[in-house]
């Protein structure tokens, strides 16, 4: 399988704190990868670096062997990288339908169309309905996004990240704060899309049940460094990982 994304000695310091310390990482197409690590390990920073939210102090990022280290966010999205956020990032005052229409118009290169009314863009509307169907928000499409329940807002957040149809999709704690029913819905979605090979997913998650049941590969971060990388079985056996998670041993004893 081909390598989708590759980093070379990626480094980012916040003052004296190393958030990314010479990270060499390869992400393969079609392999569902999870990134785990204790709080402050640099997981979100890594996503920020890879998607263009922040720029590294040094090191390089390649997407399909093309360097993208200095590209701004929107150009990376056009190349096929997108993400969801840990902290809710939707358009709260617009309706659910309008929310997903924004990235869909962008995908169809119609965002600059300033004369034809939204209502007359039938193809875009159809696409939006399809997406809402997929994430299970079609019944709520005319509600203002800000009044949705927390779980529904999370679903919308993921929907917005999926809308640009990225080849590589980073999900930053997609199920945080969801109830079990919603959580299963989201996971089924991710599993299905991953199977259909429409997107390659990279997930940050705290819930170990999810991580171990879903992932093909797990990368463990600690203080900005990769301390373990392998299949769920490898990670379970890894001594260093256990040490890092000391104090959170309950997770590990369950298994």
């Amino acid at each position, binding site marked *: 399988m081909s390598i989708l994304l590759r980093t070379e000695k990626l480094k980012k310091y916040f003052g004296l704190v190393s958030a990314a310390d010479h990270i060499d990482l390869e992400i393969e197409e079609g392999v569902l990868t999870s990134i785990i690590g204790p709080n402050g390990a640099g997981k979100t920073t890594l996503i920020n670096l890879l998607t263009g939210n922040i720029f590294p102090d040094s090191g390089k990022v390649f997407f399909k062997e093309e360097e993208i280290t200095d590209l701004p966010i929107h150009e990376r999205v056009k190349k096929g990288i997108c993400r969801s*956020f840990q902290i809710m990032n939707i358009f709260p005052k617009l309706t659910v339908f309008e929310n997903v229409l924004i990235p869909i118009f962008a995908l169809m290169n119609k965002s600059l169309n300033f004369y034809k009314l939204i209502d007359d863009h039938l193809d875009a509307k159809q696409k939006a309905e399809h997406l809402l169907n997929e994430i299970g928000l079609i019944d709520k499409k005319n509600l203002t996004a800000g009044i949705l329940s927390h779980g529904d807002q999370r679903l919308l957040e993921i929907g917005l990240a999926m809308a640009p149809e990225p080849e590589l999709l980073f999900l930053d704690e997609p199920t945080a704060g969801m109830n079990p029913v919603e959580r299963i819905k989201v996971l089924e979605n991710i599993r299905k899309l991953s199977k259909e090979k429409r997107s390659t997913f990279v997930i940050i998650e705290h819930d170990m049940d999810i991580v171990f049941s879903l992932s093909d590969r797990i990368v463990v971060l600690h203080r900005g460094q990769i301390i373990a990388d392998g299949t769920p079985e490898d990670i379970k056996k890894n001594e260093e990982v256990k040490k890092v998670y000391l104090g959170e041993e309950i997770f590990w004893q369950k298994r």
Partner: protein
Amino acid sequence: MKRIKFFLLLALVIFLFSLPAFSGKYILYITIHILILSVFALGFNLLLGYTGLLSFGQAGFFAMGAYACAKILLILPSLLLGTMTGMIAGALAAFLLGFLCVRHTRIYFSMLTLSFGMMIYSLAWKWREVTGGDDGLVGIPRAPLEIPGVLSINMNPMGNYYYYVLVISLVAIYLLYRLIHSPFGLTLKGIRESESRVAYAGISVRHYRLLSFTIAGLYAGLAGSFLPPLENTVTPPIAHWTHSAEPVMVTLLGGIHTFSGPIVGSIVFYIIKDIIVRYTQYWLIWFGAIIVFLVLVFRGGIVIFLIERIWSFMNRR
């Protein structure tokens, strides 16, 4: 609701077109001013209400339009050419200065626009050879509307000029209405709500902001270009930041999240001003107090207030 809205709109347009038949010069003069302020404020609200940027420099672009139009009319008496030049001048100035302004948001953006606006003001004040300095440009003719070989309309009667401003304003307002309800308008609303989310939709936020700023400048320039043929003079105060405050005021008054807000605000603005001026020379004090009162009472603007309170009240009965 949609039907009623349509008929109300139709009634308003018919009223506006029949206005010269039953009203004097003064009413037409005031109405032209309301139209000018409406176009000016609508462009401004594309920035504030839809893109989420508060500009304090719009008077600069208004003045660019006014001076450019005046210059053209002084050289070549063609009204349409003057209007078009004014529009382009406003847009061009907004594009060049916007390039520097849209890198920042919130208060930083506001301060940058304020200072660039005041730069245009001092330019109008000091560059005597071109702008006439504090005397301004005088003796600007209200040139006839001429398209060679097609038509030539004398604009000296107030009624004719009123129709000219009315038709162009209505077209401009209609186009802006389409823009707001198009994918581009939706994308701008998205930028207002969450900049980073729009970036992750694959859109260059900075380019879209610049475009929005340029369009607002174009509308300011258009509004400005209506002024010289009406008043026959242009003076530097129209570029002053206090003039930039006018669209801010009327937009807040009418409501920033409604399309018609700036128009309703402009109408109320001129009505209040016109009434107070008759009673006292210290009209600004009263005017300010009334505006503050209205903004506090009509939270979210007059239009929202009318729709949400009065409309739902009438429906309940």
